[in-house]
């Protein structure tokens, strides 16, 4: 081994703590990259493989009823490869041991042969026998939630009749990777069942023999989805088609897609932060090392080493550090990536998981880390390597300092000389001080990004559950009912208040932009399910026109006073032109409201309702639930309290994991930055500090010089950290924003305080570790040698 390489190894060993701190920052960046890209690829590949093997459809359409003969015409639509008809019906399920009514979606299965699309992955058992209405295959998550197995039974109200069904099979479907019950905000496996039944049986129950009420299409690669949807819609119009939609509006697919987008964003945003910080740390540490070794470099040059040989020597040093970080990052990232993929496997319902790794990502990771290290090293090495040897061997010119304040100013401020020393040191290296501050600020901002989601979700819960939808339950009817049904609902046990609503499926259009959604008609004097403006004040619905949520206004680019085109997708299927009169705050879905009477007028349908929101006496809930389970017209029941509990559970699980990861990451940055700054300072100022000790300053006082500067920088960095954190939080809010939901941009003061506290703890710990070195300063050795 060449002597220079021996020096390299000894240098690395001597600086092990700093090397580790920098490598940890690099590792954190690389791990995030590997983790996010690994989980992304795995999830993506798993989904693709699942879709492929189980022929997940591309286009879906619901309708009232169409004869199967229509299928031939649907298959003739250019671009359509396959069309699969089926019967889909919502139902109330009654499960022993579960007081609340559950929802079920009954889906028909062809009695002979496999369906062409959306095939099942049968985990256990079999499919129902043809014509049997007492046999069902259920989705795995529902079965698991109730510890159901083959042979277990429960009751379902199908077309007004309660029937006991027996589970003959347990399956998974690509349509229900994310299984959300009707009207639910979060999956609740206990209260939502997907049941597959014999087509003949189900058709018999609903008088749909030879007919279907849902159709799925597979398209040719490259076919225009929009064209197919338009043609399909016009074919289905006279059969009560409620507007066809593509995968991006298919609920399960859309949620999965949102998750994938977030993973991709994580891989894009977080690693660069860490790599930038590590470049700075390498720069700072190497600058110091090179200046300490200035004479050695001069000597090497005098001995005949070329500048680039010496530069390569230091480059190898930083490359070794980056290699260490990359190795650790890849290992940790690989493990965490698998862990996260498994976690997704639990949350989403996949029959199998593919752990996909793109080997290129490791190469990219190593290259990026090496590049960050080299960029960090460049300035430090360049400065000395190209000095003539004679100059390099001389001691560097003494450092020049500037006044921070005028003499008078200092006297007024009453700073001790120790404080002045610390202040001038900051001012002397403003770039380094600023970058140190920036590193600390980034740690703070990562924490805010993690913590603010809790504030945001709390706000979301407050607005959604306690200010907007204050009902205890929502009853949805299978078909519209005359509004005197509200009187019947009021008579149910324990019901204290009942408010009707009417939901109309429409396509809302403004120019070339459109969205398929429901206009919800509500009474003017609503008390339970309210609508809030941007100041969270209740809105009284105007007698005419639409009130739309911010998201709808955003995606359709409409503002108050604009006229939008409304294609009604039911009843007489008219096209209306309606003004937007107000824009309101809603975090879930695409919400559009109208006064229920005005809606009735434009629909020319009189007083009808789709469902009822109710408030009830909790002490009578058992009696009420029993009554609802025996009310045939109700096809699904939303329970706010259950929804809220479920919401909190799911969010808590996800956010806790994320928050822990971010705390660890921020601590690594804060520790890496502060520890390295302190070590470099200690090295630069050993002589000063030893002088102070000799003059009779105590260890505590001497440490204060070191601590003051770092504590000051840490404190100054906080507001910037908060500000950058706000920016990241805003990016997160934008990133999360979809038609499914959006999260509010809310950061509580306590969140800033918490982020600051965590970073301060990390900073103080690293300062204390370095401080212990002040105690071990070699007073005599340091003072008797020339710097």
């Amino acid at each position, binding site marked *: 081994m060449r002597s220079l390489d021996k020096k390299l190894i000894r240098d690395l060993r001597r600086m092990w703590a700093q090397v580790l701190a920098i490598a940890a920052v690099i590792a954190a960046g690389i791990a995030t990259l590997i983790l996010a890209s690994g989980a992304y690829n795995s999830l993506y590949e798993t989904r693709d493989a699942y879709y492929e093997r189980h022929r997940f459809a591309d286009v879906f359409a619901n309708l009232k009823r169409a004869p199967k003969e229509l299928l031939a015409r649907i298959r003739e639509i250019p671009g359509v490869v396959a069309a699969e008809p089926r019967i889909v019906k919502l139902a109330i399920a009654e499960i022993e041991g579960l007081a609340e009514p559950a929802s079920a979606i009954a889906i028909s299965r062809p009695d002979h042969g496999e369906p062409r699309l959306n095939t099942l992955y049968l985990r256990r058992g079999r499919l129902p026998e043809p014509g049997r209405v007492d046999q069902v295959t259920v989705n795995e998550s529902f079965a698991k939630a109730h510890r159901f197995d083959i042979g277990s039974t429960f009751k379902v109200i199908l077309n007004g009749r309660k029937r006991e069904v027996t589970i003959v099979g347990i399956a998974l479907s690509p349509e229900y990777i994310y299984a959300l019950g009707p009207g639910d905000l979060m999956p609740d496996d206990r209260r939502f069942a997907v049941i597959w039944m014999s087509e003949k049986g189900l058709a018999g129950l609903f008088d749909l023999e030879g007919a279907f009420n849902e159709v799925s299409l597979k398209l040719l690669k490259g076919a225009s989805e929009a064209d197919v949807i338009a043609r399909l819609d016009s074919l289905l119009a006279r059969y009560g088609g409620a507007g066809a939609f593509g995968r991006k509006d298919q609920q399960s697919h859309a949620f999965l897609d949102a998750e994938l987008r977030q993973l991709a964003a994580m891989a894009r945003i977080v690693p660069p932060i860490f790599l930038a910080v590590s470049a700075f740390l390498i720069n700072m540490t190497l600058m110091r090392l090179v200046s300490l070794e200035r004479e050695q470099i001069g000597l090497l040059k005098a001995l005949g080493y070329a500048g680039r040989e010496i530069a390569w020597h230091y480059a190898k040093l930083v490359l070794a550090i980056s290699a260490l970080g990359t190795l650790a990052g890849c290992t940790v990232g690989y493990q965490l990536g698998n862990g996260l993929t498994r976690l997704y496997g639990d949350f989403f319902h996949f029959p199998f998981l593919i752990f996909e790794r793109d080997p290129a990502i490791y190469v990219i990771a190593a290259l990026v880390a090496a590049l960050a290290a080299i960029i960090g090293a460049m300035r430090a090495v360049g400065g000395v390597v190209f000095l003539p040897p004679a100059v390099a061997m001389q001691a560097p010119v003494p450092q020049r300092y500037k006044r921070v304040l005028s003499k008078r100013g200092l006297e007024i401020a009453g700073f001790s000389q120790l404080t002045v020393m610390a202040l001038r040191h900051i001012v002397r290296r403003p770039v380094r001080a600023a970058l140190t501050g920036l590193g600390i600020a980034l740690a703070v901002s990562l924490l805010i990004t993690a913590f603010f989601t809790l504030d945001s979700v709390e706000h979301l819960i407050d607005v959604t559950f306690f200010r907007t939808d204050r009902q205890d339950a929502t009853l949805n009817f299978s078909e519209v009912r005359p509004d005197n049904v509200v009187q019947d609902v009021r008579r149910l046990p324990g019901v204290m208040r009942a408010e009707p609503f009417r939901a109309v499926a429409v396509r809302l259009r403004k120019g070339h932009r459109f969205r398929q959604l429901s206009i919800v008609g509500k009474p003017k004097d609503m008390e339970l399910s309210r609508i809030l403006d941007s100041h969270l004040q209740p809105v009284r619905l105007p007698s005419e026109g639409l009130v739309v949520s911010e998201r709808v206004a955003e995606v359709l680019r409409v503002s108050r006073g604009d006229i939008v085109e409304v294609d009604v997708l039911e009843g007489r299927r008219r096209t209306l032109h309606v003004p937007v009169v107000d824009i309101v705050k809603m975090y879930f879905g695409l919400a559009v409201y109208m006064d229920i009477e005005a809606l009735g007028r434009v629909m020319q349908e009189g007083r009808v309702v789709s469902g009822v929101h109710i408030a009830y006496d909790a002490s009578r809930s058992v009696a009420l639930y029993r009554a609802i389970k025996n009310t045939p017209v109700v096809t699904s029941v939303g329970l706010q309290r259950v929804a809220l509990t479920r919401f909190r559970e799911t969010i808590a699980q996800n956010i806790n994991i994320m928050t822990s990861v971010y705390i660890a990451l921020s601590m690594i940055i804060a520790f890496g930055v502060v520890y390295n700054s302190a070590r470099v300072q200690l090295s630069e100022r050993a002589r000063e500090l030893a002088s*102070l000790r000799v003059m*009779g300053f105590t260890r505590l006082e001497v440490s204060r010089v070191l601590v003051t500067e770092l504590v000051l920088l840490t404190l100054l960095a906080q507001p910037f950290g908060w500000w950058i954190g706000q920016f990241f939080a805003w990016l997160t809010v934008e990133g999360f924003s979809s038609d499914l939901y959006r999260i509010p941009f809310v950061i509580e003061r306590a969140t800033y305080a918490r982020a600051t506290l965590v970073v301060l703890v990390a900073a103080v710990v690293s300062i204390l570790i370095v401080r212990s070195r002040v105690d071990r300063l070699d007073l005599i050795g340091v003072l008797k*040698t020339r710097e």
Partner: protein
Amino acid sequence: MSEPVFTVRGLTKVYRTGNIEIRALQGADLDLNAGELVVLLGPSGSGKSTLLNLLGGLDRPTSGSILFKGRELAALGEADLTEYRRNHVGFVFQFYNLIPSLTARENVALVTEIAADPMSPDAALELVGLGPRKDHFPAELSGGEQQRVAIARAIAKRPEVLLCDEPTGALDSRTGVRVLEALASVNAELGTTTAIITHNAAIKDMAHRVFRFGDGCITSVEVNAQRIAPSQISW
């Protein structure tokens, strides 16, 4: 001469590095009297710096005793040694060891802020002839000026003893003499007991007494019957 400031008996210091044992000082005995200016002469490694470090409380002896005004330094703990350095001893080093981020005046103020009965920083700088340069940073001062700031910083606390390790080692003759003048005037005006280590035999004539060192022992002590002024010294 009055009573001794330091009474040193059987002072021994042994350094151990691995298996190697270096006996830097072997049973030195000496007394330093109040107001006395002594020069410690000897080749490198003869033990004079070790003695100075022990007198100044920078290090603890392996055996033997150092009485400072009747107080045993060898028995003091870390905190007491710090207190001792803070209030009783001034140091001057070959490489000045000024704080580069503080001006001359502030370097002196560093000490006056913590000492029990200091003089003003301005008075200390006047004493070494640097009044007009007091607002300059070390980088703006010559080597000799920097060393005089170091002396001002050392004496500003009105120490009983001033310990100087090669104070002119890095300076040319002319600048060195100015530094020696500053030391002599401090000794004369404040009566500070002063010990100066040097390789430079020319300096010995300004001392009251001269201690010669060899192999960790004091080999001889000379008393100068006739002291000469620093201005008459050159090298």
